[in-house]
């Protein structure tokens, strides 16, 4: 490491520095490491920069080791973890980049802006790779809606996601949402974005070429979000949250839309050496990461940065999290042209420094040096921890629950009512109220709209496409993080398979409590292990992801929530069936086998107010075979509709198919199970498929061929769902229970009185 060219004038005493370090969230040993790296007492600017870059949020210091368990390679992988987003090849020279990220803590303070800027951030990660964002998904968790605060958070977050995504013209095509007490003090807002690019346009954020310019493009820099990375995302939530309000950031989707167009044009014209986005830790992270990846240095002058506010200190400029800013490296020869493109789109573009060969990150205010650090030490020398883990005691207690001993409905009347109660459960009912607030069609690519198992997006002009789904049942993960994480993967893959997609790769967003608590870290480690094993079994790599720790309030951690975002490849989008029952007379085949698995079920929660037992078991080989059969049949053009069976069990899955198709069905659920188990058990690896009668035999052969259990269980038709010997419920009742619930829960607003209207 070459010696500092100029040492910054000290502005912190040896006594004060360690104190500031602690305030900024650095541990004493971490501070010592900073001093060691620098060989002197850090300046204020340097201390801020290290405290953010070495925060959990930026450095993954607690999770890094565990994440090495994930498989990252596969036949389609063009870019694995480590860049702003992962990229896979999807054929015909096309590739897709995708990633999921959390914005939990900002959203808990200001749901609209928190969720909106979360979308803005993940979108920037995508076009930074040279990809045009073509679809987003959102994965949400709140407390129960009887609490006004939760309704406020839910409404605000959905409005924010729509407000931002709709404006920039990226369709929000899917997602998931759960309402559970465990999230009351700490909602989860995870956003996933998918971008499309030509393989040859794949861009990486690697700075190069000493003498090249560092160009800041987009919005001005203000004091917003200062310290956001460490203060907001890496500390537990408690009453102190109130004081952290000033660091809320307001998103500007219009500026982002211009950034997308300008940056893609800049890359298209080959005007950039490198491109990076300003996310957590602002200029500090984007520039230090670019520099260290390229093994070069940078020299930045904060006075050159367009500032939104008077009298900002150098450290404020360096760590500000003002939104909608991008950093590019440009050769002197291309500077003119780069400015021109930005100007055309009405964007500011300013040279704020240059690339050097010193390997150092030099920060100056005019000609005064205020920071001089090894660039790589900021980005890569953060400590890596090996946290202690301990299996939580609550597990045995929860597993001990004797579900058989509970009172279960047996007669037709109560079984029917139970089905309606489950359909109207906030965790099962239609999410139409959400996705109708999202533009899910812009770009004309959405072939399967929200409301089915997975969204299908056409790619290019032909029939090729991708299917995407985001899934995680936190209750299963609470009861068994290993199996729960595997089920998150299995369900995402099953959803995609039901849309005719072959799983290609996943991204993830691992939401957990405080990793410094051994019990919490154990659940994290188990979940990662489970997810890694599931990925291996399916030969599906993890190409990107995000870890969000410290999701606790008043010492209470959320359910472990390792959300999986899976993208699959669809050869012919016109064959994607969707889940709606189509024509009277179509034959209903139930693929897979139902066991007595009510542990962690929605039935147990809604009917008995219990979260306990063991989650459903998962046989990865059976799961794979079931999905293969469904895919084979879809490819063969046999499948009229396909819907996987998840929360609420087979009865709910069948009801959803009826409601979606506006037609009834007559089904016989065979087996020795008691009715309530046959109807509501959440056994995995099950899919409801409908076919024309003439195709049933071929389909049966496919099942036999793969030794997949199946049952020809009934036919589509009529205006009620009849479960032979169990219950019969009229279609209108099913629809009302399923369709109206969410809106009613959020706001039973009366319609606007006539006299209040114009004219």
């Amino acid at each position, binding site marked *: 490491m070459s010696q500092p060219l100029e040492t910054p004038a000290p502005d912190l005493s040896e006594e004060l520095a360690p104190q500031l370090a602690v305030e900024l969230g650095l541990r004493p040993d971490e501070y010592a490491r900073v001093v060691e790296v620098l060989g002197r007492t850090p300046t204020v600017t340097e201390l801020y920069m290290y405290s953010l870059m070495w925060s959990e949020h930026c450095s993954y210091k607690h999770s890094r080791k565990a994440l090495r368990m994930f498989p990252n390679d596969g036949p389609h992988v063009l870019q694995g973890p480590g860049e702003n987003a992962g990229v896979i090849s999807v054929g015909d020279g096309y590739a897709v980049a995708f990633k999921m990220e959390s914005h939990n803590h900002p959203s808990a303070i200001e749901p609209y802006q928190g969720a909106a800027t979360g979308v803005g951030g993940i979108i920037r990660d995508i076009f930074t790779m040279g990809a045009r964002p073509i679809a987003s998904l959102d994965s949400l968790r709140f407390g129960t809606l009887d609490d006004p605060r939760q309704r406020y958070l839910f409404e605000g977050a959905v*409005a924010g996601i*729509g*407000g931002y995504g*709709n*404006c*920039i*013209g990226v369709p929000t095509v899917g997602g998931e949402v759960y309402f559970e007490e465990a999230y009351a003090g700490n909602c989860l807002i995870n956003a996933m974005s998918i971008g499309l690019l030509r393989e040859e346009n794949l861009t990486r954020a690697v700075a190069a070429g000493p003498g090249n310019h560092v160009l800041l493009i987009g919005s001005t820099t203000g004091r917003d979000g200062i310290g956001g990375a460490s203060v907001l995302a890496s500390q537990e939530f408690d009453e102190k949250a109130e004081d952290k309000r000033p660091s809320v950031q307001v998103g*500007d*989707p*219009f*500026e982002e*839309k*211009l950034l997308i167009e300008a940056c893609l044009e800049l890359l298209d014209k080959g005007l950039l050496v490198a491109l990076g986005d300003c996310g957590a830790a602002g200029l500090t992270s984007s520039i230090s990461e670019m520099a260290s990846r390229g093994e070069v240095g940078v020299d930045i002058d904060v006075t050159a940065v367009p500032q939104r506010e008077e009298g900002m200190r150098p450290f404020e400029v360096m760590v500000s999290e003002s939104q909608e800013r991008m950093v590019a490296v440009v050769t002197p020869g291309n500077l003119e042209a780069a400015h021109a493109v930005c100007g055309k*789109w*009405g964007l500011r573009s300013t040279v704020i420094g240059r690339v050097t060969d010193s390997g150092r990150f030099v920060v100056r205010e005019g000609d005064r040096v205020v920071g001089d650090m090894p660039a790589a030490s900021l980005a890569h020398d953060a400590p890596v921890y090996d946290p202690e883990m301990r299996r939580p005691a609550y597990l045995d207690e929860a597993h001990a629950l004797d579900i058989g001993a509970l009172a279960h409905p047996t007669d037709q009347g109560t079984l029917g009512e139970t089905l309606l109660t489950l359909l109207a459960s906030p965790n099962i009912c239609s999410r139409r109220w959400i*996705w*109708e*607030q*999202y*533009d*899910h*069609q*812009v*770009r*004309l*690519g*959405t*072939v399967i709209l929200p409301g089915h198992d997975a969204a299908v997006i*056409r790619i290019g002009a032909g*029939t090729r496409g991708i299917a995407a789904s985001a899934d995680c049942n936190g209750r299963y993960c609470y009861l068994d993080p290993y199996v729960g994480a595997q089920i998150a993967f299995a369900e995402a893959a099953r959803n995609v398979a039901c849309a005719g997609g072959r799983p290609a790769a996943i991204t993830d967003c691992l939401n957990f409590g405080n990793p410094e608590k051994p019990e919490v870290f154990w659940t994290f480690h188990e979940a990662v292990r489970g997810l890694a094993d599931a990925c291996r079994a399916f030969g599906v790599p993890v190409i990107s992801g995000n870890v969000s720790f410290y999701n606790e309030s008043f010492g209470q951690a959320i359910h472990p929530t390792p959300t999986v975002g899976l993208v699959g490849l669809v050869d012919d*989008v*016109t064959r994607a069936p969707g889940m709606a029952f189509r024509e009277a007379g179509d034959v209903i085949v139930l693929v897979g086998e139902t066991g007595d698995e009510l542990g962690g079920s929605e039935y147990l929660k809604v009917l008995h107010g219990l979260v306990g037992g063991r989650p459903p078991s998962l046989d990865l080989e059976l799961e794979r075979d079931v999905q293969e059969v469904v895919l084979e049949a879809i490819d063969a053009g046999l499948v009229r509709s396909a819907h996987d069976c998840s929360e609420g069990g087979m009865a709910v899955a069948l009801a959803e198919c009826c409601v979606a198709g506006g037609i009834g069905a007559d089904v016989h659920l065979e087996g020795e199970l008691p009715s309530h188990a046959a109807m509501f058990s959440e056994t995995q690896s099950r899919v409801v498929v409908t076919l024309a009668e003439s195709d049933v035999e071929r389909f049966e052969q496919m099942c036999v061929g793969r030794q997949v259990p199946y049952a020809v269980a009934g036919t589509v038709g009529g205006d009620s769902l009849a479960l032979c010997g169990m219950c019969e419920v009229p279609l209108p009742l099913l629809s009302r229970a399923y369709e109206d619930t969410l809106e009613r829960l959020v706001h039973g*607003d009366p319609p*606007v009185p*006539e006299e209040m*209207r*114009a*004219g």
Partner: protein
Amino acid sequence: MRFGVVVFPGSNCEQDVVHAARHLGFEADYVWHGDTDLSGFDAVVLPGGFSYGDYLRCGAVARFSPVMAEVVRFAAKGGPVIGICNGFQILCEAHLLPGALLRNRGLKFICREVSLRVEDSVCQWVDLPAGSVVRIPINHNEGNFICDPEVLKSLKEGGRIVLRYCDEDGVVDLDAAPNGALDAIAGVCNETGNVFGLMPHPERAVDPVTGRTDGAAFFGAIAGRVAALAG
């Protein structure tokens, strides 16, 4: 037949309109909001999106783009102009069409396929018989059409109400527009019928792979009209 699709900063449906037009076998190209030359275009499209972020008021800033003066001239000469969603809002702000579009009554953005009844109008962009029902998606936060009573009267008398929100059977409930629009109005045109503004997105209902094709009629109608004039 060549459509000129104007691109304002923040437009986000321009590519969809061009795709739809070309899918239907017509020519279509982009017109940058800073340009002032519309020669060579048979019809002008102001596409959907969020021009200038829809900040201040939808369409308020876009209206001052250099290209708009030319659009006004083009329309005055009888040239066909269609404003879709944000484009409709821009046409109202530019006073090429009457009224204004307020926040949806429920204050929620709405993305949904709706039924629309074709009214008996002078609009050159429609050749479907009055009373026909088309299914087309809407996608907006400010589609709540409003105008004062005199204007409404003149719209009715002048056959300038082009589309109304209705149910599957074509029945219109004047107070039941999804966005609260006055008289369930979804689209209006100018006196001469060449300037047409509507909230629904016909370009989203053209390609069978992604759903219905009812939107094709609007492109077809104006193309037929232009071809006829060309003789």
